[in-house]
């Protein structure tokens, strides 16, 4: 089927409708079923002794007293697991030169970050396991810690991995055109150095697993709070030497993930190892402090960037030097080079900029590992670019809208390839920018800002354009050799009652995946939404697929369900044709009823089809076999990604005597193609914006000079609270992608991509009359007061 007829064949109205998340009512009744809610017989509990040092040699571990504590079942260290679990290495073939050592579930001879798991205790209760931790004696020899980016980059400082000649994990250069010449000929050059702080994921439900190994069959069932059950099935199979058919990963309710629950962590691997050692179920639930210390962190970047413009304010080129600290290891299996890679490629991406020269340096340090997280690389690319665009606007003498209008990629240019190599099918920057200007009533805000300044009140307006990477295809991980599927699968079954059961490989973490999949199935089948049930998150009950990450669930999962629904419908109409003694083409399925295509007259219900097909096939012609289940798989085609675009704006007030920022308003105009469910899309955008606002104003994984994580509690790590959040006003433009039959792109990361950038720009706009510029996020009161010269 061609893509256009696919979109034209939409029969009922569920796609595009606001539908609340189907599981919301269950959660509101307290009937959620997260890993920790599931009861097991003979369950044992796991706790970890973690490195109190950022960097230390482990000389001796004495576990005798811990083993002797009543209720302790097992105590093991890294070397105890080498026969059970093979090590892993976070490399991908297409990041040539990326180096990172083998990693084990627990530290081996050295601990390399404060919080790294070193010794595991399994006990009859978590409390006993923690009591036992207090009885373990470890003799450490503290080593110099490599903490800051400059510290790691220094050529004469300590080296983290003695087998390497430096702390550099990976270097990438990306060039287009002739940036040098562009800078030589430029009318204006602006430049700055920005530092973006470390954040962490902070999911409501922490990382959780119950590993249940049955030694009689060598069968592992893992109840695991993960986004990617199939990837984890594969990881468990390969590293524990199990058979694929004997490993089942079940992801029950998952309380948030944001990319944090994509990665392989030593603690979960240790839980599986413990279950294999003991032959009984073993539970590990990270407590909040463990989450702070050992969940992946994100976005510690220091970027020096320059931008060259001609006399008309057109961006000619950017030069970017991005250094990022990833902790001691590149995280498996997706690598910690991906964030920097995307940051480097997203620089200048909304603009026509022809020349580019970017360098990425990925550095080891003695802090928690960093890896992919919501809006991988986007906030860095957008913040750096848009900060320079604002500096350029000032240099050229243009207002922030005008300079962006002059530079954004225009409608006549698509398909367009950015200087950094991204192929953009069709975006809508012009329309988004125009819509935003009207939505926020820019002239009125400017007048208000001016009037306020005269009264000593400093308000700022910030704008940022962005593109978002969504619907990644096979070129994303597959090409690098990772066993991470880019395709998805869906099975649709007609129940005897006429109801529809959909099982699909994309997964739900609270964002409404199951609702979206039900809407797509109901729409393309022609049945009532309430008659569709969706099953996700179980490798034994759903087809194999990539699952949910990189804003791919709705776009790719939705297209998969659409294909399966259309095939199921074809089967149903064929059965109807046989029963009603006509041709399949004579009939249609509308609202769960078989109707005459010519006059929409109802002929029979889907329930009647189910009854006859399942229970009275004797009434059907001989040798006719109704096909009552279908399966379809979908592989993204065409360009490597479906990009979306949008523009955001912030209006805020800076208290110049205290450095406290008050957010007054926030606007997002976004284009994610066909909108499957506007309420869920808007929730994704708002949630994403709040993630970005948290990062730019509050959240920071602070480390002391010797590598102690200082902000490892909810009192010290400042998560964004509703009380500080502004209204977030959203509008949409719709440019469907032709790359999938559904036309929907992703939206999960759009909000996060630019929310921080607009706040940074707005704060700097507010401070402009006073002469201060902020270059380091989060924008703490102290940093603002320093920029203002008050302290």
């Amino acid at each position, binding site marked *: 089927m061609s893509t256009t007829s696919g979109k034209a064949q939409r029969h009922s109205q569920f796609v595009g409708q606001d539908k609340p998340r189907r599981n919301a009512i269950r959660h509101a009744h307290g009937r959620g079923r997260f890993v920790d809610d599931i009861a097991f017989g003979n369950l044992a509990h796991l706790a970890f002794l973690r490195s109190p040092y950022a960097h230390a040699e482990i000389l001796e571990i004495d576990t005798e007293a811990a083993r002797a504590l009543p209720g302790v079942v097992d105590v093991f260290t890294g070397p105890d697991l080498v026969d059970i679990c093979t090590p892993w290495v976070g490399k991908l073939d297409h990041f040539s030169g990326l180096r990172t050592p083998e990693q084990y579930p627990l530290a081996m001879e050295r601990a390399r970050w404060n919080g790294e798991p070193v010794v595991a205790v399994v006990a009859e209760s978590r409390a006993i396991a923690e009591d036992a931790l*207090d009885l373990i004696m470890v003799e450490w020899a503290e080593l110099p810690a490599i903490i800051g980016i400059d510290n790691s980059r220094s050529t004469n400082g300590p080296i983290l991995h003695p087998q390497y000649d430096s702390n550099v994990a990976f270097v990438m250069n990306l060039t287009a055109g002739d940036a040098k010449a562009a800078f030589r000929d430029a009318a204006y050059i602006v430049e700055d150095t920005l530092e973006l702080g470390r954040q962490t994921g902070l999911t409501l439900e922490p990382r959780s697993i119950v590993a249940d190994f049955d030694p009689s069959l060598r069968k592992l069932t893992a109840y695991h709070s993960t986004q990617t059950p199939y990837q984890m099935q594969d990881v468990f199979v390969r590293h524990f030497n199990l058979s694929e058919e004997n490993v089942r990963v079940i992801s029950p309710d998952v309380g948030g993930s944001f990319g944090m629950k994509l990665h392989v962590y030593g603690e979960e691997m240790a839980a599986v190892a413990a279950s294999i050692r003991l032959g009984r179920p073993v539970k590990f639930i990270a407590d909040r402090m463990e989450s702070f210390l050992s969940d992946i962190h994100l976005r510690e970047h220091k970027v020096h960037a320059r931008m060259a413009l001609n006399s008309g304010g057109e961006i000619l080129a950017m030069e970017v030097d991005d250094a990022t600290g990833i902790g001691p290891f590149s995280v498996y299996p997706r690598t910690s080079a991906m964030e920097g890679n995307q940051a480097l490629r997203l620089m200048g991406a909304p603009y026509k900029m022809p020349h580019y020269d970017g360098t990425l340096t990925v550095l080891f340090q003695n802090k928690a590992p960093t890896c992919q997280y919501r809006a991988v690389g986007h906030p860095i690319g957008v913040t750096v670019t848009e900060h320079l665009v604002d500096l350029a606007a000032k240099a050229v003498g243009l207002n922030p809208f005008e300079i962006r209008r002059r530079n954004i990629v225009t409608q006549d240019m698509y398909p367009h390839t950015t200087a950094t190599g991204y192929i953009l099918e069709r975006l809508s920057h012009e329309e988004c920018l125009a819509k935003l200007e009207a939505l926020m009533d820019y002239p009125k805000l400017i007048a208000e800002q001016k009037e306020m300044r005269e009264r000593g009140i400093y308000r700022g307006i910030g704008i940022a354009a962005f593109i978002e990477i969504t619907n990644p295809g096979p070129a994303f991980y597959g090409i690098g050799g990772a066993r991470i599927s880019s395709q998805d699968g869906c099975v649709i079954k007609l129940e005897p009652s006429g109801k529809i059961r959909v099982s699909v490989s994309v997964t739900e973490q609270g964002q409404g995946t199951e609702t979206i999949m039900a809407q797509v199935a109901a729409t393309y089948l022609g049945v009532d939404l309430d008659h569709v049930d969706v099953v996700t998150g179980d490798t034994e009950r759903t087809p194999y697929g990539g699952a949910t990450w990189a804003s791919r669930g709705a776009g790719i999962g939705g297209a998969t369900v659409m294909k399966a629904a259309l095939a199921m419908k074809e089967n149903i109409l064929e059965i109807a044709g046989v029963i009603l003694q006509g041709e399949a083409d004579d009939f249609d399925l509308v609202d769960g009823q078989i109707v005459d295509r010519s006059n929409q007259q109802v002929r029979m219900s889907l329930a009647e089809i189910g009854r006859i097909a399942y229970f009275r096939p004797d009434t059907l012609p001989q040798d006719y076999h109704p096909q009552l289940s279908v399966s379809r798989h979908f592989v993204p085609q065409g360009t490597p990604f479906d990009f979306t675009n949008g523009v955001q704006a912030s209006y805020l007030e800076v208290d110049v005597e205290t450095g406290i920022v008050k957010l007054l308003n926030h606007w997002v105009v976004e284009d994610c193609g066909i909108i499957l469910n506007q309420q869920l899309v808007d929730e994704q955008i708002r949630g994403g914006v709040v993630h970005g606002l948290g990062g730019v104003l509050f959240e920071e994984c602070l480390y002391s000079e010797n590598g102690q994580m200082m902000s490892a509690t909810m009192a010290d790590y400042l998560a*964004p609270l509703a009380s500080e959040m502004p209204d977030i006003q959203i509008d949409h433009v719709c440019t469907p992608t032709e790359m999938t039959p559904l036309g929907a792109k992703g939206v999960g990361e759009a909000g996060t991509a630019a929310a921080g950038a607009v706040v940074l720009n707005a704060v700097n706009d507010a401070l402009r009359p006073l002469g201060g510029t902020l270059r380091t996020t989060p924008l*703490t*009161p102290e940093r603002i*007061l320093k920029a203002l010269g008050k*302290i």
Partner: protein
Amino acid sequence: MKPGLFQYVRADDVEKAVSLLQEFGDEAQLLAGGQSLVPAMALRMALPDVLIDISSIAEMRSITLTDDVLRIGAGCRYVDVLRSEDVARAAPMLVQAIPFIAHEAIRNRGTIGGSLAHADPASELPACMLALDAAIVLQSASGARTIAAEDFFLGTYSTALDEGEMIIAVEIPAIAVNQHHRFLEISRRSGDYAISGGAFVLEMDAGIITAARLAFFAVGDCAVLAGSEALLGKPLNAETIDQVAQRVGEEITFYGDLYNGIGAKRQITKTLTRRLLAQFPGMEL
């Protein structure tokens, strides 16, 4: 994040509580609202062998106003104090301050005595007690004594409580005619520990300040009075306020916190001082 093993005993009256304190000595800790102690135990930063639960001692839950003295039982929760008419009448400072203390769930459980005994330098209540010139009533197995708030807070988590002693009440002189209470704190998020906070009491006569107690919290090692003398005998005007803010910046020994160095603390405290003084009646701006 599970606490270590501990023994739990409940005291139903003060007499029982102090006798248990005497019996277990420094192995014991008192459990009232548990809003600081229980998280510290979960982190195993506090590892008491014995928890003496005093949360059900009825005699420590009353609030009375007699002869111009407001007496608040140490077991009163923030929410009890916030809703008390006697408190509103005699110590409006507390009604202003309590909404700044953490979040509602914590205010429903946290107690006055618990906060004062814990002596967190960022807590609101010690500063309120300093500003209000409160007396803290202590009890041990050997008897009771009363100590001025000014002598009670010694440093970070450090008080004049002797071994075997517990706080049973605070006594606050009721607000006088011509006296005014104002409270403010500056924080990044609502409910956070303040970057800087102030609890100010001024007495004025014909526009001239006759008495002042300016207490600050979240600025140093404990709640502290500063700058008060610079106000005496002066009208409350922009010039006075500038002088006082300057004095406050000089007098306090600032401590940095995780996010704010000494410079930021000083700048923000001076700003707080100006803003809070500007809220008093009679301010001529």
